[in-house]
């Protein structure tokens, strides 16, 4: 009877993971609203209160003021709003689109390591659902599927603004996927150096950043990757697909209630995943600080601390995402294309060649 | 008249400018004709001069002459010197004289007015916010021109009774009274009812009636009009509406054949009061109290408000169809009205032609005249019916002739305008024998038994003209909108006429009807509606001048003179 560890346990882990990512995504929305409020000298959501929790003397009002309960209310609202479907949409694709948008975002987390556990034998093991060697390839492959959701949504809506949004989104996705892929090659060229046994495993990348973080060692790669993540997750200043000023709402113009909510969550899940990957690749994962040995003790406590540290970094990245959003204006479409093809792609190729040469020279020495 | 006036002018010098004024005129009137005003309270052009308000003080002077030789006294430049009177004099009791010099804007004059205003305002309660006169108050107007803006009087003001009923229609506020005595003079000189007077003296002076008497003659409300302040107010209009909201439309009083010129004051389709409009050829500046109450017929309970067929409300088109069907059966008689306007009578005469009516009758409404502004004929337009050819002789008070015709079976259908058949002497049996088509303002015995009833409009809801006792054509204007759904009387008559002859009806306007009338009626040749002006035009009575009209001598009517004038009447229009 080994179906419990073989089947039920992974399932439990997966559900936990989904809940965690979804929760973080939900609270990213809150963070977005709150931070935008602060940046614009407003207060942001501060009214929603739970019946009992909200009335606990000091804590209740404080949480309410922070808007902690707001995502709950938003989620409920999305759930219970009337589900309006325009008459002119292509129904099957219209329903499939939000699911297709969300599923890849959630799937990528399977290969995301989020901490380490040193067991009683002193063996360090990654905390991950599936520690596959081709982790980064998996992520690149699956996450770029998310664009199908957007394209389908744009097309199935059968009206011009969503359609334009979908087209733009796919073009953008194609443009930046290249630069993104090329930008992380040097990372792996260094991390998966001959002798290291972990190939394209993300865990391996983190392990390799024990001392020096790759973000410092490979700043150009980090920058290109960061920009590409912005573009891939359709964040400002790259939200061509839904730019309100010229496309009304882009691909989700015709969506409402829970289906819109799915898109919404998918977008923020992308941010979470993107932040996590960036942290893993360039910010040392759960490693404490550059050149400082991680002080995590062995055992469960060390594992929890490493996870928390990793989460902290993710949150910092999410904050950065939001911060950028409320600072930079949206690019024009042609600017987005030029940046992707004319600048980032050559830069990434150049960076790759430069690093290859560097490694070649390094190996000769 | 105007030609005469032009011949008799003299030159006076007003504020350094030589101006032509009518000879023998009062100085205030003369200046008014020049388009300027000398402020005054007690003076009234139609009343005697008392000169007790002192507001009209002006500087007066005559060219100097040497007393001994009678030679003009010249100054160094060889211009005749002006002998200014040492003190200002009141303009109201000064008659213009050739060469007279007056100053109306000098500092002295202004000081005089300032002083007079200060005294008048000493004990004035300053209750303009609750005063009905506010907005048309001479005291307010001159206080803005010559008032000081604040009072130097620190003592307590005089207190007098605020609401004394000095007549059934008049309320006196003693505190506001400036003792100009216009009302007293009016009662005595115009109304011949000398009941008002000032009792006590000094600051106790009070306007009052003799104990046990009231100002209750039929002209009492004119005292309210001429009161320059808010001392006398009409109980009917009191506190109802501020005058600045009211729109004044020139109209004609329908009470009697005098045809007093009036102004109808309304706001948003509701009439609040009627006041006289000055017309020296008709009513001077007066009118009767009873005439002022006529606006109440607009909202009277017995007003006919809807088109009816067989006593049931119906649409205009259905009522027209029913009436036409009835009249086409033939043997239609028409009872016309002297209360309809000239244009309506004309269109009715057209309709009479179109229906080939067997006879046209009219009912007279005579009462006692007061030899002033209430004549014996209580209809406004009897002479109009004569001019339009509806009738050829004076009507009787009873429809006996028509009654006989009905009895003889000569009449099947009766088209009645305004008149009450039972009151006009038809028996129930006679009425029952015919089908009645009634058009009128009120519900009465005619409408009660009518096959078809058409609501007509009051004089306030339409425009048109009346011919008064002196064959003077005077027009009235639309003051308030007609009741919902009721068409203009002219439209109704034209529709009936057109359907009778199988034409398609037009919507006749008063000026358009006038064009027709001017062609068809001899004495209206060359006239048009606009040309009547606000004061009306006298027309040639022609062969009707010798008819034995019932009007006796009154304010502007002299039957003897009238019949003598005959043909000339038109010429002096």
């Amino acid at each position, binding site marked *: 009877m080994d179906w419990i560890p073989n089947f039920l346990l992974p399932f439990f882990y997966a559900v936990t993971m989904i809940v965690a990512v979804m929760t973080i995504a939900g609270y990213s929305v809150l963070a977005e609203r709150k*931070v935008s409020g*602060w940046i614009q*000298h407003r*207060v942001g959501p501060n009214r929603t209160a739970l019946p009992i929790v909200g009335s606990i003397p000091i804590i209740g009002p404080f949480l309410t003021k922070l808007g902690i309960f707001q995502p709950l209310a938003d989620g409920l609202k999305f759930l219970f709003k009337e589900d309006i479907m325009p008459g002119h949409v292509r129904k099957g694709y219209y329903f499939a689109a939000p699911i297709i948008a969300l599923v890849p975002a959630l799937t990528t987390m399977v290969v995301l390591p989020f901490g380490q556990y040193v067991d009683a034998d002193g063996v360090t093991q990654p905390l991950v659902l599936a520690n596959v060697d081709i982790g980064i390839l998996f992520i690149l492959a699956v996450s770029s599927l998310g664009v199908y959701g957007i394209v389908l949504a744009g097309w199935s809506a059968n009206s011009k603004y969503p359609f334009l949004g979908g087209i733009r989104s796919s073009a953008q996705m194609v443009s930046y996927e290249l630069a993104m892929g090329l930008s992380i090659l040097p990372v792996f060229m260094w991390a998966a150096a001959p002798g290291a046994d972990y190939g394209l495993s993300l865990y391996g990348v983190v392990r390799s950043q024990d001392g020096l973080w790759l973000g410092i060692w490979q700043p150009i790669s980090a920058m290109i990757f960061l920009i590409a993540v912005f573009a891939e997750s359709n964040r400002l200043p790259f939200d061509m697909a839904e730019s309100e000023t010229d496309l009304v709402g882009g691909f989700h113009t015709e969506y409402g209630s829970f289906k819109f909510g799915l898109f919404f969550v998918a977008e923020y899940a992308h941010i979470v995943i993107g932040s996590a990957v960036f942290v893993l690749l360039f910010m040392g994962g759960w490693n404490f600080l550059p050149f400082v040995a991680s002080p995590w003790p062995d055992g469960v406590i060390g594992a929890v601390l490493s996870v928390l540290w990793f989460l902290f970094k993710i949150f910092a990245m999410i904050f950065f995402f939001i*911060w*950028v959003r409320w*600072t930079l204006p949206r690019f024009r479409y042609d600017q987005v294309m030029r940046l992707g093809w004319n600048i980032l792609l050559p830069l990434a190729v150049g960076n790759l060649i430069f690093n290859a040469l560097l490694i070649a020279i390094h190996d000769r020495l | 008249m105007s030609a005469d006036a032009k011949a008799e002018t003299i030159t006076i010098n007003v504020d350094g400018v030589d101006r032509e004024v009518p000879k023998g005129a009062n100085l205030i009137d003369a200046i008014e004709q020049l388009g300027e005003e000398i402020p005054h309270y007690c003076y009234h052009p139609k009343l005697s001069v008392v000169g007790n308000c002192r507001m009209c003080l002006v500087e007066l002077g005559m060219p100097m002459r040497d007393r001994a030789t009678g030679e003009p006294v010249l100054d160094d430049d060889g211009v005749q010197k002006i002998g200014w009177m040492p003190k200002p004099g009141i303009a109201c009791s000064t008659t213009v004289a050739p060469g007279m010099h007056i100053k109306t804007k000098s500092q002295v004059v202004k000081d005089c007015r300032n002083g007079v205003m200060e005294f008048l305002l000493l004990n004035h309660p300053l209750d303009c916010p*609750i005063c009905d006169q506010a907005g048309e108050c001479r005291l307010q107007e001159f206080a803005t021109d010559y008032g000081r803006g604040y009072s130097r009087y620190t003592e307590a003001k005089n207190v007098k009774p*605020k609401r004394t009923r000095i007549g059934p229609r008049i309320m006196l506020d003693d505190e506001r009274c400036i003792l100009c005595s216009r009302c007293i003079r009016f009662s005595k000189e115009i109304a011949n009812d000398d009941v008002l007077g000032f009792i006590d003296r000094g600051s*106790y002076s009070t306007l009052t009636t003799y104990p046990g008497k009231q100002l209750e003659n039929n002209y009492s409300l004119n005292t309210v009009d001429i009161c320059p302040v808010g001392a006398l107010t009409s109980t009917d209009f009191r506190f109802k509406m501020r005058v600045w909201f009211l729109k004044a439309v020139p109209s004609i009083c329908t009470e009697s054949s005098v045809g007093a010129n009036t102004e109808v004051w309304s706001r948003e389709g509701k009439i609040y009061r009627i006041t006289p409009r000055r017309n020296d050829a008709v009513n001077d500046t007066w009118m009767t109290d009873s005439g002022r109450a006529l606006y109440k017929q607009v909202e009277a309970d017995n007003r006919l408000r809807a088109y009816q067929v067989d006593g049931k409300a119906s649409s205009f088109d259905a009522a027209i169809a029913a009436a036409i069907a009835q009249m086409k059966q033939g043997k239609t008689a028409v009872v016309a009205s002297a209360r309809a306007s000239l244009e309506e009578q004309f269109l009715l005469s057209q309709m009479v032609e179109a229906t080939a009516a067997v006879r046209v009758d009219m009912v007279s409404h005579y009462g006692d005249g007061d030899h002033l502004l209430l004549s014996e004929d209580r209809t406004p337009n009897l002479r109009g019916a004569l001019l339009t050819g509806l009738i050829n002789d004076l009507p009787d008070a009873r429809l006996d002739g028509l009654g006989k015709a009905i009895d003889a079976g000569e009449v099947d259908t009766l088209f009645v305008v305004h008149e009450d058949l039972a009151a006009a002497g038809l028996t129930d049996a006679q009425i029952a024998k015919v089908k009645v088509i009634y058009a009128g303002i009120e519900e009465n015995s005619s409408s009660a038994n009518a096959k078809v009833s058409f609501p007509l409009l009051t004089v306030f809801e339409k425009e048109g003209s009346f011919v008064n006792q002196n064959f003077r054509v005077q027009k009235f204007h639309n003051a308030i909108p007609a009741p919902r759904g009721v068409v203009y009387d002219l439209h109704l008559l034209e529709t009936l006429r057109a359907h009778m002859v199988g034409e398609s009806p037009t919507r006749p306007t008063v000026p358009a009807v006038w064009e027709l009338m001017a062609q068809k009626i001899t004495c209206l040749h060359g006239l048009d509606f606009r040309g009547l002006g606000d004061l009306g035009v006298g027309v040639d009575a022609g062969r009707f001048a010798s008819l034995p009209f019932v009007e006796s001598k009154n304010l502007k009517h002299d039957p003897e003179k009238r019949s003598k004038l005959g043909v000339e009447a038109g010429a002096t229009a």
Partner: protein
Amino acid sequence: MAKTKVLERKPLSLAERTYLPQIASGLKTTLGNMLKPNVTLQYPEERPVIPENYRGVPTLVRDPEGREKCVSCQLCEFVCPPKAIRITPGEISEGSDTEHVEKAPEEFEINMLRCIYCGLCQEVCPEEAIFLQDIFSVSGYSREEMINKKDKLYELGGTLPDRHRKWDKKKAAEINGPAHH
């Protein structure tokens, strides 16, 4: 033709062309703003300080004796630019305590759907009976509800001190008779 002066556009430096310094300074600005203290007023709980001459909802006031000050002179109705005021004047019946005032509004309506809060009614009122006070938030479920009737107007207006006591003086004078004997 006015002379046009062509300004030469300077070429961007390399650092400027990367935009990175600009982005960094932008981020600095937004972060600086974020850390500044907030000025937002938590409206329904916190109320703004209403200055004395604030022009809120027009109301009718009573004098300290509880007498209605309005004498329905209708000047406000006249001056009201959007014609929001509607007064039916009435007479104070003889024998009442305030019969010396003679006139009071029988009905007084201010249509808050029309009112533009210009304050001309307050300006023009000779009896100091109408005031735009500190109420700034009005709402209702129907048009009828938005027309403030006389009762509502007095309820909103309350009582204000009367500096002149004109009618009190007048009444005293009526009781005591003329001052000079």
